[in-house]
Each structure stands twice: as structure tokens, then as C-alpha cells.
């Protein structure tokens, strides 16, 4: 299947404005969670350790340390369950995938050098 046709099909399922963040950023991912017939927003905080795929198939991985246990969640970029992504802190990294964070423990596991060149957007 050619790319033009794929783009055309996928266009209907894409997010209106693409999520803007980079690998290394510390983010709050607001996800819609359905419990029975009620719906609420859950926030997942962590460091973006990778983005992959393109078009509607793109996903990103967020890692955090939760009660001393490393937790990673993979979100499809265009999923309607991902309400929005807030960038808390821009990171300056030299890798596309931050898998090296998995080997780290303690403080180092959650620290990515801050990128001061771009002003961090105000996160609550």
C-alpha cells in the first residue's frame, strides 16, 4: 500500500494537533480511564524514554519509578484515551531511546539533564 493512501486512511484517526514532546522530557500523561460507566482522568508522570512508529501507529514509552519499582507504560500517540500530554521539564539527551535508565537505580534513574535552551512550559 502506498504512503499517500495510508495517510489518507489514517488521517481520520489522527489527533488534531500532534503531541509535542521529545525523548528525555518529563511529562504528565493524562489518560481517560473508564470504571464501569464512569470516566475519570488519570495522570501518569515520568520520563519519555522512546518514541517509535509513525503515522497512526506511533507510540511513546514513559518510565517512572513507582514505590521503588520501575514502571513503563506505552501509549499510542493518537489514542483517544490519551487526553493530553503536559511537559513538565525538557530533557537534554543524546540517545533516541533511553533504555540505559533501566540499569540505573536511585536518584540517577529519574534524572535526565535539563535542556535550558528551550523554556520549559509551565506545568501545574
Amino acid at each position, binding site marked *: *500500500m502506498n504512503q499517500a493512501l495510508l495517510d489518507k*486512511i489514517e488521517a481520520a484517526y489522527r489527533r488534531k494537533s500532534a503531541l509535542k514532546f521529545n525523548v528525555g522530557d518529563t511529562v504528565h500523561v493524562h489518560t481517560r480511564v473508564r470504571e464501569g460507566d464512569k470516566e475519570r482522568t488519570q495522570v501518569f508522570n515520568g520520563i519519555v524514554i522512546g518514541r517509535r512508529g509513525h503515522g497512526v501507529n506511533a507510540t511513546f514509552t514513559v518510565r517512572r519509578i513507582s514505590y521503588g519499582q520501575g514502571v513503563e507504560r506505552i501509549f499510542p500517540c493518537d489514542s483517544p484515551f490519551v487526553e493530553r500530554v503536559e511537559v513538565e521539564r525538557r530533557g537534554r539527551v543524546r540517545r533516541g531511546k533511553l533504555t540505559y535508565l533501566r540499569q540505573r537505580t536511585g536518584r540517577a534513574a529519574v534524572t535526565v539533564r535539563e535542556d535550558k535552551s528551550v523554556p520549559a512550559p509551565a506545568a501545574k
Partner: protein
Amino acid sequence: MIGLIGKKLGQTRVYDTAGNAVGVTVVLAGPNRVLQCRTMETDRYCAVQLGFDEQKPSRVSKALNGHFKKSGSGAVKQVREFRNFSLTVKAGDVVGPGIFSAGDYVDAIGVTKGRGFAGVVRRWKFRGGNRSHGQKGWYRRPGAIGCRSTPGWVIKGKGMPGHMGQRQRTVQNLQVMAVREDDQLLLIQGSIPGANGDYVIIRESKKNPKAPAKK
């Protein structure tokens, strides 16, 4: 029972109304030209003959070209009859993916990808031998194929090596996720036999037919 001839284009992912990601196969399913309507009176059975994928007339025999001419359609690559077509159509009509709607269930018939001469591990999912424990030269073999003098023959249907794939297969009860009439496309949940670019038959599901006949 309605159906279409189509061409498998590839796969992608869409989101359903609930927001779940669904893997879909994209099928080009039109335009399908009605070449002939077979009726009880003339042919002793009811069917609709559809043609799909245009072709140079010079690539088709004169006999077939004459047949195409009768319905006023150009030459096509694929011709197929659908028994008991539940839509009222006449020769010369053009049908497309619009005969299905999102939410319908369909069966997809296609020819699976050829795998060539395959051993029993690949073809029948035999376990093969151990890689370790001093094993030597007995990794992917079928082992014994029967018993001793009782019964004295090999049971029919025993898995053996041989040609695998390139056989017609039907996948039943696939849901139509979206119909794009402008592009003549059907987006069907799940996978469909065959390689991209292969012809497939998309037919109303035998087990989950549409409730009312749609015009």
C-alpha cells in the same frame, strides 16, 4: 448473500468508536461490474457474475471480450459468480464497497502466501528434538510415524513434510470497521489470507448475515 471481488492492499490501525485501537486490513473492493445475472429460467440457478480490475482488451480472449461487451463493461482481470445475490442488480451495474456498512460481518476468501516445501515443524507445528542434552542431528525431524504390526499402516492425515501455503482459505466473521466509498475501500478488522496485492473475495458472513436485505 452478497459479495465483492477485491484486492488486499495492506494493513494499518484505526480507532473504533470506543477508542480502542483495532488492526485492520485495507481492501480495494470496487468498482465491481455486474457482467451477467444468472436466473432460474435460463441457467437453473440464481447468481450474479461480477468482474473486477480493469484489463487491456488485447490481453483477454475474444470470447471473453464478447462476454464483457454484452454487459457494456470493459475487459476485467477477475470474474466471479456469487450465488443468490440478495441485491437487485442488472448486467451493466457497478457495485462497490457501499453494499456493506460499518459493523457488518464478512468472510474473506483468499489464497494464502506460498511457503514452498516445508518440514513438519513449520507445517504441522511438531516439536522437533532437543537442542541440548547431547542431541545430534535430530532437531526438526518428524520421528516415528506409526506403530508396529498393529495396525501396520500409517494413520490417514498424519502430518508429513510437503508443500505449504498457496491454498484457498476462508476467514469467517470479520467485522467491517469502515467503508470508504470515495476510495472504494473496505477496512476490515483482522487479517486476511494472501499477500498484499492478491485478490480476495469479501462476502457477507455465512454465520452472521446482515439482518435485512439492503438495496
